[in-house]
């Protein structure tokens, strides 16, 4: 029960109740998402969205880890 989809924040709409909302784009398909759980997120950041809520920002540097490991494995082959 964990379908989380990465999307890019297009807009931020802080609201008085404290429940920041925003438009997040998934490959061009944009939806309203609650951003209250990622208070530090900015427009242009990528977030992981589940059931209408952003649960975390995606760390670009960490995202490369998988490919770093693959490169290392490739080097061992040589």
């Amino acid at each position, binding site marked *: 029960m964990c379908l989380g989809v990465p999307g890019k924040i297009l807009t931020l709409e802080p609201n008085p109740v404290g429940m920041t909302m925003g438009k997040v784009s998934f*490959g061009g398909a944009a939806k309203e998402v609650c951003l209250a759980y990622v208070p530090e997120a900015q427009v242009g950041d990528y977030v992981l969205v589940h059931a209408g809520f952003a649960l975390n920002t995606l760390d670009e540097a960490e995202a490369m880890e998988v490919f770093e490991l693959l490169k290392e494995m490739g080097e061992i082959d040589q």
Partner: protein
Amino acid sequence: MRFIDEYRNEADARKFLTAIGRLVTRDWTIMEICGGQTHTLIKSGIDRLLPPQITLVHGPGCPVCVTPLELIDRAIVIAQRPEVIFTSFGDMLRVPGSPQQTFEVSQTSKVSRGAQDLLSVKARGGDVRMVYSPLDAVKLAQAHPDQQVVFFAVGFETTAPGNAMAVWQARQLGLTNFSILCSHVLVPPAMAAILGAPGNQVQGFLAAGHVCTVMGTWEYEPLAETYRTPIVVTGFEPLDLLQGIYMTVKALEEGRWGVENQYTRAVTRAGNRPAQKLLAEVFEVSDRQWRGIGPIPASGYRLRPAYAAFDAEQRFGVAGVTAQESPLCIAGQILQGLKKPHECRAFGLQCTPEHPLGAPMVSSEGACAAYFSYGRT
């Protein structure tokens, strides 16, 4: 698509598969505990690409599957009430209730013949609606002040922050017509139950990446220590799963145990603090029934007394509704990874996606449905 496509690259997948093949010197049994991961493994065919020494076992990672049958029956009773708009995620709509349902609904003292599932309640005129987010249910409550809006809050820790926010928002807005039917379950106690069960075959775990996005990874450290099991927090794309399996096999081969994090782009040791804060405000840990497994102490969430007004079970007085399982369904053994779906006598015969006997065949993240749809017979 960024953060998706690059994790579906064939050449990179081949590299991981080769590396795993080189590492492996004996048989290993690894369990993944999230339905989303089961889905990816089978959909991308990874389970058939791995070296034969590796056995993948699918754990109770489908909250739909572990929701107790009586809760489905209670949902059906509530949904039949004329003043109720019953909202839910898609999967729950097709889980069948008890085979024969005659209830006494306490407040109306009427004996009503239960419907088969929530979709059939809709077919008979009940207002049952699928939503993508609990916030949609709150919006419905605002838009329909004369109706009672109920949201079927089923899920692991991934979904709980959203449900907490919905309840919190409802309170801020002063809504008296919104409530949730709560069936929240927690992963670490389930893992402990599996690892601690006599006859347990599981040697390594892929922990659920999105659950850990919320809760962090620190809860798994005592588990890894106690049971001397490698636990690798893993993502959901094919390369994530392959790397997670690689890391698990490496640890097993090297005789190591402990928690490792494959899904570092989305998971930190501490987890999401604002989410945990609101969870603690709205929910408290409680004992929970896991369908097919039985009661596991301190394995679920319930609403705190301060938010009890939003509990649909209390509001609609359905706590007395009890359930009756199909004798043919071995969901429990499937969910604990003791049997594979195709080893069930009813698989593909009396039990198919059209006529499911139990939840793992209904939920698209259930192991039985995945095996059936993707042709593992």
